[in-house]
C-alpha cells in the first residue's frame, strides 16, 4: 500500500520542484516519475503475482460522500501502462519540451497530476472517488491538450475534448445514480441479480456505454479524439492514447465485474460497437495526411479490437462458456497493455519526426530512415506490432480474441462471433495498409521537402523511452507466457470465479518457438542475400528515362486513394481538383481530404443548426420592458390555470 501511495505522491508532485528552478526541471520531474513508476510497478507486480490485495475506506463526510480505494488485480494491471507511459513520456519530455518553452513548467506539473489522477482512478472503489479521479484526469488532460493554446486548432481541439469528457461525466452521474439506486450505496460492488436485465439496468448500461464510450473513443463517440491527440504535445498524446482512453475500458471492466449476469445483448452490443470502431477507425486513418491524426484514428481502431474481445468474453460469460470468456477478456486486457506500449511508442517517434521536420504532414516527409535511424527503427517496431504481425505483442492479443471468436462459433446462434472474426481480419489487413503507408511515406523513399531532407536524429533522451517501449513490445510478443498468469488473476478478480488458465487455452510456447524460428530464418536469409556481390551507388529504376524526382514518388494520399475511394459511402472523402479537358492542359492541383464523418459530417452541422435555431429564440429577450412584464403576467396566468386544473 505504501508503495502505491509513494508512487501517487511522487507523480502528483513531480512537476513542483521544476516550478522553482530555472533549469533541470524536466530532469527532476522525469526522475520522480521514473521512481514513481518503479514503486508502482513493484506494487502492481506483487498483486498480479498473487500477493495480497488491499482496500482502504476513506472517512465519510457529513453529507454522506465517502470514498474508497481497492488495489485489486484489475487496478494493478491498469496501473502498469499508466506508470510506464508517464515515466517514458517525462524522460522524452526533457528534450522534447525543454525549459525554454512557454508552457514547459505547466506542462510538467500537469503531466504529473495526470499520472496521479489516473493512478487514483484505477484503484477507485467508490463512485465519488471514481468521479473525482475521473474528472480530475479529464480536466488536467484538457489543459494538456490546450498546451499550445496560441493555435486556434489546439483551442478547438481542447474545447471539443472538454465538452465531450464532461458530457461523459454527466452520463456517469446518471449511470451511478441508477446502480446506486439498486445497491443502496455508492460503494462499488456486486449488483443484485436481475438488475442488469431490468429496464433501469438497461438504462444504466446505456449511460455507462455512453460515458465510457466517449472516454475510450468508441465510434461514433470518437469525434473528439483525433484532434485532441494531434494537438497535444507528443508525449501527452502518447499518454492519452496509451492510457487515458483505456480508462473507458477500465470502466467497462469494472461494470462487468459488478454484474453477475450480463444479458446476451450486452455482449452483442460490445461486438457490434467494436466492429464498427475497428473498421471505421482504420478506414479513416487510411485517408489522413497528419501523422498524429493517423495514429489517433488507430487508437479508435484498437479500442474497437478491445471491445471485440470484451464482447466475445461477455457472450461467453452470459452463455456459460468459460473458455470463450477467458480468451475474450484476456485478449482484450492484454491488448490494453499492448496498445499502450506500441501506441505510446508510435506517438513518441511521431513526435520526434514532427520535431525534426517541423511538420506533421506526411506528404512533406520521406527518406527519414537515413537521417533518423533510431527513430525509424522504433516506429517500425510500433507499426509492426500495431498491425498485429507476428512475432510482436499485437499478434498475441489479437490471437486470443480470434480464438475466442473461433471457440464461440459452434454454439452461437448469433452472428456476433463471425462478425468479430470478419472484423478482425479486415481490421488487420487495413491496418497493415495504413502502417505500410505511414512508415513507407515518412521514413522510406526520398525526402519530399527541404525540411525532411535537413532532419536530424532525435537526442538520446528521446530515443531511450522509445527503446524501452519497443523492448516491451518485443518481450510480450516473444514470451507471452509471462503475461498469462497475471491475466488469469485479473480475470478471476473480474468475474469472481476462477476462469480456465489462459496457458491451457493457447499453446504459448509454440508461439515463442515459431517466433524464434522466424527470426532465425530471417537472419540467415538476410546474411545469405547480403553476402553476394552488389553495386550500391545506382539510381532507382526509371524506365530508362530521366531520373525520377522526389516529387514523383507516391504520396500518402495517392497510396491510400484506391482504398479510400473504394469506400465513399462510409468515409465521405473530399476531393478538389480541376478535370483536365484540353489537349495541352495548364498545371493543375489535386487535393484530397478525409474529414471525420461523425464530427464534420454530422456533429458540427447539427450543432451549428441547433445553435442557429436557439439564437433565433433570442428575440424573447429583445429589451422591451413591457414584454418582460408580460412574461411575468403570463407566467402567473399559466400557473393559476395549472392550479385550477
Amino acid at each position, binding site marked *: 500500500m505504501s508503495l502505491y501511495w509513494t508512487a501517487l505522491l511522487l507523480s502528483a508532485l513531480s512537476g513542483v520542484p521544476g516550478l522553482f528552478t530555472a533549469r533541470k526541471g524536466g530532469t527532476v520531474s522525469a526522475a520522480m516519475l521514473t521512481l514513481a513508476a518503479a514503486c508502482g510497478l513493484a506494487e502492481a507486480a506483487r498483486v498480479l503475482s498473487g500477493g495480497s490485495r488491499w482496500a482502504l475506506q476513506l472517512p465519510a463526510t457529513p453529507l454522506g460522500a465517502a470514498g474508497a480505494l481497492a488495489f485489486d488485480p484489475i487496478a494493478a494491471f491498469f496501473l502498469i501502462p499508466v506508470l510506464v507511459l508517464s515515466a517514458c513520456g517525462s524522460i522524452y519530455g526533457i528534450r522534447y519540451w525543454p525549459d525554454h518553452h512557454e508552457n514547459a513548467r505547466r506542462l510538467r506539473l500537469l503531466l504529473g497530476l495526470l499520472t496521479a489522477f489516473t493512478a487514483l482512478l484505477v484503484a477507485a472503489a467508490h463512485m465519488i472517488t471514481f468521479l473525482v479521479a475521473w474528472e480530475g484526469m479529464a480536466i488536467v488532460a484538457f489543459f494538456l491538450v490546450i498546451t499550445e493554446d496560441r493555435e486556434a486548432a489546439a483551442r478547438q481541439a481542447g474545447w471539443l475534448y472538454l465538452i465531450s469528457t464532461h458530457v461523459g461525466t454527466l452520463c456517469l452521474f446518471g449511470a451511478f445514480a441508477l446502480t446506486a439506486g439498486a445497491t443502496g450505496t455508492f460503494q462499488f460492488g456486486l449488483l443484485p441479480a436481475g438488475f442488469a436485465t431490468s429496464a433501469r439496468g438497461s438504462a444504466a448500461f446505456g449511460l455507462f456505454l455512453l460515458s465510457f464510450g466517449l472516454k475510450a473513443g468508441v465510434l461514433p463517440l470518437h469525434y473528439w479524439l483525433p484532434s485532441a491527440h494531434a494537438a497535444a504535445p507528443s508525449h501527452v498524446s502518447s499518454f492519452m492514447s496509451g492510457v487515458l482512453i483505456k480508462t473507458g475500458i477500465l470502466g467497462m471492466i469494472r461494470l462487468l465485474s459488478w454484474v453477475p449476469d450480463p444479458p446476451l445483448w450486452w455482449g452483442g452490443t460490445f461486438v457490434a460497437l467494436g466492429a464498427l470502431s475497428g473498421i471505421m477507425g482504420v478506414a479513416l486513418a487510411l485517408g489522413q495526411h497528419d501523422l498524429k491524426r493517423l495514429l489517433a484514428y488507430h487508437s479508435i481502431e484498437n479500442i474497437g479490437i478491445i471491445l471485440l474481445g470484451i464482447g466475445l468474453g461477455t457472450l461467453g460469460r452470459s452463455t456459460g462458456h468459460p473458455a470463450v470468456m477467458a480468451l475474450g477478456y484476456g485478449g482484450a486486457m492484454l491488448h490494453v497493455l499492448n496498445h499502450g506500449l506500441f501506441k505510446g511508442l508510435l506517438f513518441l517517434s511521431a513526435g520526434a519526426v514532427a520535431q525534426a521536420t517541423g511538420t506533421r504532414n506526411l506528404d512533406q516527409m520521406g527518406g527519414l530512415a537515413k537521417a533518423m535511424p533510431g527513430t525509424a527503427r522504433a516506429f517500425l517496431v510500433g507499426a509492426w506490432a500495431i498491425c498485429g504481425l507476428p512475432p510482436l505483442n499485437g499478434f498475441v492479443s489479437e490471437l486470443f480474441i480470434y480464438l475466442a471468436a*473461433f471457440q464461440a462459433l459452434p454454439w452461437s446462434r448469433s452472428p456476433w462471433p463471425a462478425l468479430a472474426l470478419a472484423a478482425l481480419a479486415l481490421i488487420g489487413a487495413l491496418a497493415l495498409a495504413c502502417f505500410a503507408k505511414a512508415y513507407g511515406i515518412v521514413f522510406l523513399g526520398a525526402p519530399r521537402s527541404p525540411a525532411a531532407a535537413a532532419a536530424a536524429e532525435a537526442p538520446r533522451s528521446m530515443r531511450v523511452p522509445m527503446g524501452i517501449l519497443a523492448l516491451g513490445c518485443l518481450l510480450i510478443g516473444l514470451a507471452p507466457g509471462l503475461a498469462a498468469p497475471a491475466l488469469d488473476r485479473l480475470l478471476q478478480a473480474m468475474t469472481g470465479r476462477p476462469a480456465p488458465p489462459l496457458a491451457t487455452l493457447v499453446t504459448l510456447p509454440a508461439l515463442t518457438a515459431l517466433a524464434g524460428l522466424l527470426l532465425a530464418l530471417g537472419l540467415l536469409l538476410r546474411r545469405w542475400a547480403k553476402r553476394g556481390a*552488389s553495386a550500391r551507388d545506382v539510381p*532507382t529504376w526509371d524506365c530508362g528515362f530521366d531520373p525520377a524526382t522526389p516529387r514523383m514518388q507516391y504520396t500518402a494520399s495517392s497510396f491510400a486513394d484506391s482504398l479510400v475511394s*473504394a469506400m465513399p459511402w462510409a468515409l465521405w472523402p473530399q476531393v478538389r481538383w480541376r478535370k483536365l479537358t484540353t489537349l495541352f492542359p495548364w498545371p493543375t492541383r489535386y487535393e484530397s481530404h478525409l474529414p471525420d464523418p461523425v464530427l464534420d459530417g454530422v456533429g458540427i452541422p447539427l450543432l451549428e443548426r441547433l445553435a442557429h435555431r436557439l439564437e433565433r429564440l433570442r428575440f424573447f429577450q429583445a429589451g422591451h420592458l413591457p414584454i418582460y412584464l408580460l412574461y411575468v403576467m403570463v407566467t402567473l396566468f399559466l400557473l393559476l390555470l395549472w392550479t385550477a386544473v
Partner: protein
Amino acid sequence: MAEPVLIRSLHILLQVLAVLALSPLIPGLINRVKATLAGRTGPPVLQLYHDLAKLSGKAALFSRTTTGMFLAGPVATVAAVLVASLLVPFGHLPAPIHFQGDAILFIYLFGLARFLTVLAALDTGSSFEGMGSAREVTFAPLAELAIFLGFAALAKASGSASLSDLLASPGLAHARSMAPSCLVLAGWAIVYLAENSRIPVDDPNTHLELTMIHEVMVLDHSGRPLALVLYGASLKLMVLGALILGLVLPRTGRPWLDWGAFGLGQMLLAAGVGVVESVTSRLAMAKVPQFLMVGVLASAFAFLILLV
C-alpha cells in the same frame, strides 16, 4: 498418439523437404501448361531452378534511395512462408506444428510477408513501386476476409482454430457440408489466384509496369534478393495450394496414399492455373475488387448456410 514418433518425424521431414525443394517446380508446370495450350514449346519445367542458381551468382543492385528495408521484403517473404508451411497439413496428416490458433498465425505470416514487401517497394522511392504497393494493400483486405470467412464456415462445426482440424472437417464428403465446402473452395480459389499474382488478377509475365501489381513491387530487386523473391513466390504457390487441397482431397486413411494424392493434387492445381491463365484475360484494375468480392461473398454465404 498411437503413431510412432519415427514415422511422424519422417512425415515432417518429408513435408519440409517437399516445400524447400519441390515448390519451384510449380511455376514451371504452370508455364508448361500455358505454353502447351498456346501451342508453344515453352521453357523447361525446371527453368526456375536454373534461374535461381544463376541469380545467386549475380551481383545485386541497391539503389541510392534504399535502406536496409529493401532487403527485408524478399527475406521476410521466404522466411514467413517457410514458417507458414509448417502449419499447414500436406495431405491429411496433421501439420508438423499444430496448435489452437495456427490458422491465424498462418494468415498473419502472409500478412507479414506482404507488409515487408510493400515497405521494400516503397523504399526505392519509385512511383511505379508505390503504385504497385498501393494496389497490393488495396486488394489484400478482401483476400484475407475471404480466407477468414472460409475459416469461420469450417470452424462452425468444430470451433477449432487449427488448420489441421479445419481442413480435416468432413468437407465435400459429407452431404450437409457439401454446399458450404464448395463455396469456401470457390472463395479460396479466387484468393489463391490473387495471392499468387495470377491472371485474371495480375499477370506475372507482363512487361508493362503500369499494369502490374506484385511484379512492379519487386522491380528493383536483382541478384540474390531477386532469387529470394522468385523462390518466395513459388513457395506461396505450394503452401496456399496445400490449403485448397486440404478442402478437396479425398481421405484415404493411408498416409502414403495421401501423400500421393497431395502430389497429384498440386500438379493438377498447377495445371488448373495454367488453363485459367490461358483461357481468361486480365481483369481491368477497377474490376479486381469486384472479383475478390465474389470470393468474399462465396465464403460468407458458406458461413450463412451453416447458420440457418
